[in-house]
């Protein structure tokens, strides 16, 4: 090396440990613990197994979608249409089963397929026609919700067989069924993102799409699969949702994209892409649910919690901006 080339700045070890402490997930976990402790002290109905498990039940739909959304956001994209896909899939379960008189398992599979297809269409619009993901999914948000409304004609479908409600209301080994589903999805998400070539491609695309393409990574295919997975997860969430509330309506999932994106961004995934973890998303998800529950227990009504989520989202982005500057990026 030339003696003139600049020396790398030596990093004092203390700064390193401070940085790891300030890592987003660590911080988030601490906040979550603090919130849990605070709420437990404030309200003795909060820290009970029954309540916590019930909260887990309630957050599953958002959680399932948020796992896929983490991948979407890491590639630098966004999927605003997930709520509409959820609504469309929910309506279709009812239509396939009641109107077309298909067996319920077939109806469920078909509507999962439609969800995947809807996500795939998003992916195609984004990769093939190079429409920015925000606009593409804003457009399909209207389209898919419109299809849900048009197909259902605002009629709800009820009267599903009892076994179907196991998914959204039953338990396995004392833990709500859908929480097992969330757990499985989370594990798959964590492993795929951390350790597979697919996960590597996801990060590389988010950090530098052209650089990824010049390295021979399958950019378009990866994005396509991720948007399709997002649609699939929205469909899965629809099944859980319908099973939990025992009815299908076309307005199901309206605005759920906000909860999902809040969980993802709160979890430390950069909205500009390239950085983020599924574990962070899960922590963000739990924190939101704990906040909602805590507020509800202290008498704030459901709509008030929406305000808090909005505020938390902005504050999360601001903090992550500050942290980024702190870490000198």
């Amino acid at each position, binding site marked *: *090396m*030339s*003696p*003139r*080339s*600049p*020396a*790398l*700045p030596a*990093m004092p070890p203390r700064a390193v440990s401070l940085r790891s402490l300030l890592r987003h997930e660590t911080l988030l976990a601490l906040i979550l613990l603090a919130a849990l402790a605070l709420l437990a002290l404030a309200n003795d109905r909060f820290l009970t197994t029954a309540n916590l498990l019930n909260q887990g039940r309630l957050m599953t739909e958002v959680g399932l979608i948020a796992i896929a959304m983490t991948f979407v956001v890491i590639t630098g994209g966004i999927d605003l249409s997930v709520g509409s896909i959820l609504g469309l899939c929910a309506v279709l379960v009812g239509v396939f089963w009641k109107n077309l008189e298909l067996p319920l398992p077939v109806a469920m599979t078909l509507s999962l397929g439609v969800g995947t297809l809807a996500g795939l269409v998003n992916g195609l619009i984004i990769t093939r026609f190079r429409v920015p993901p925000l606009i593409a999914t804003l457009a399909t948000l209207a389209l898919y919700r419109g299809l849900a409304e048009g197909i259902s004609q605002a009629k709800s479908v009820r009267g599903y067989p009892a076994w179907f409600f196991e998914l959204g209301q039953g338990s396995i080994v004392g833990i709500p069924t859908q929480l097992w589903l969330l757990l499985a999805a989370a594990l798959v998400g964590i*492993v795929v993102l951390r*350790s*597979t*070539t697919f996960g*590597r*491609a996801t*990060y*590389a695309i988010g*950090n*530098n799409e*052209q*650089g*990824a*393409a*010049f*390295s*021979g*990574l*399958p950019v378009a295919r990866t994005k396509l699969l991720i948007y399709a997975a997002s649609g699939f997860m929205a469909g899965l969430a629809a099944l859980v949702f319908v099973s939990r509330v025992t009815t299908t309506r076309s307005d199901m999932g309206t605005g759920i994209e906000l909860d999902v994106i809040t969980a993802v961004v709160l979890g430390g995934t950069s909205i500009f892409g*390239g*950085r983020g973890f599924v574990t962070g998303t899960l922590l963000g998800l739990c924190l939101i649910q704990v906040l909602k529950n805590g507020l509800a227990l202290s008498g704030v009504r459901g709509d008030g919690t929406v305000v808090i989520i909005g505020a938390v989202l902005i504050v999360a982005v601001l903090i992550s901006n500050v942290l980024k500057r702190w870490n000198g990026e």
Partner: protein
Amino acid sequence: MSLEVRTGPPAGAGNGVARLAAGAAPAQVPPMAEDAPVVALRGIEKSFGPIHVLRGVDFDLRPGEVHALMGENGAGKSTMIRLMSGAHRPDHGTVEIDGAPTRLSGPAAAQAAGIAVVHQELLLFPAMTVAENIFLGHAPRRRSGLLDWPRMRERARAILDRLDCPDLDVDEPVSRLSVANRQRVEIARALSRDARVLIMDEPTAALAEADVRRLLDVVRSLRAEGVGIVYVSHRMDEIFEISDRITVLRDGRTIATRPTGAVTEAGLVSMMVGRDIDRLFPREAGPVGETVLEVRGLGAGKVRDVSFRVRAGEILGIAGLVGSGRTELAQTIFGVTPATSGEILIGGAAVTVGSVRAAIGHRIAYVPEDRAQHGLVRPQTIRENISMAILDRLAPRVMVERGRETRLAEEAIARFAIRARGPGQVVAQLSGGNQQKVVLAKWLATDPRILILDEPTRGVDVGAKTEIYRLMNQLTAEGLAVIMISSELPEVLGMSDRVLVMNGGRVAGILDRAEATPEAVGAAMMTGHAA
């Protein structure tokens, strides 16, 4: 080597002063100061983080002169331009305007001082018309404060006529203009602000020959009007034709400022590189083997009917002007923009290279020109970058084997002497030379037979440059076929066993090392025929 020629008394000054005295000296400048520099940099230093870009720059520009600024890539020219245009502020030293130390707080302050830049990347607004682009930010107003469109169009017309561009329509959206016309719009924009100083950053890099002539005429007429022009270019012939003085920059320092008549081309080159070319380019040609890659009548987009062959152990240099299709050719062979006609033969067998993956499968590697955009994923670690092109091989059972990946990165750091804390360091924190070594390591990890290097030493310091050249020697000795694209003629001539010259997307000629003189290659680049 004298470090600098200070502004001398009138008797010793060049022809620029005579022109000024005859012509358009601003009225407010007192007569005794008429040869005083309009802009001067004194003892400028500037660092970006750990990288010391300017280490002592002295420079001055007189009214009515063309002052050429030369230096290799990475010498600090762009930083110097940004200092003069108010985009950066120096860490040490002063910027003087009309002899008074001035702090340029931003681009607006520089514009107010009469300094304008014609950017290499042409900062225009494609959706807006020519007239509006020229007057954006300082459009003529009516008394009501509203924009005066008729007057704006009229004045734009007048400025374009002054630039001898009667064919340019002031109502045309800029998105429909050719590169040469966009550049004229940029110059017109500078003139619309009554610029006294015009900084032109590689203005001819993307121009065809006829447009270059027109541009030089414009530069001459502006000089005659008393505008001081900083002219940055790599093209020797232009520099000698148009400039009054030349300043050479190397490694962030001004090496010398000389009147153009007092230097020779060879003298300039040795000032720029700081040593003899033979010592800088230690090409050790070894035994040459079988033909590894052959291309027959290849065509894709700009590339037309290109044929050549490369043998094992050989370096084929590709020379040509910017825009002659060199990078497009490389990217066609590498499968980024697959060929639409012709054949690619590897080891004698015709193959289809329809994607980057296919190219990697055929053991072709490409170190791209644009390192930041195409070569690396800079926010990620050295380990992740080096394994990126061979992830499949590192993940035989779905999971990426982290241990093997880390070992690969550690070996690369040792082999290429990459200065880094370890495999986990983020690539963006490395210097240009070390980043380029990471790109090389990434592609050599794919075990290629054919290595295409596109501007392999751009933005790399001299020490790392020599290391890259040595690596090229070593690789050819191991039997690789290397194709090297370079805009630096000394590099092409110094490192290539044969030189392929491109012009307008076609092969202008293929010259052996013995035939490849600067004159022969230069002539082929310009005219499209080998002499």
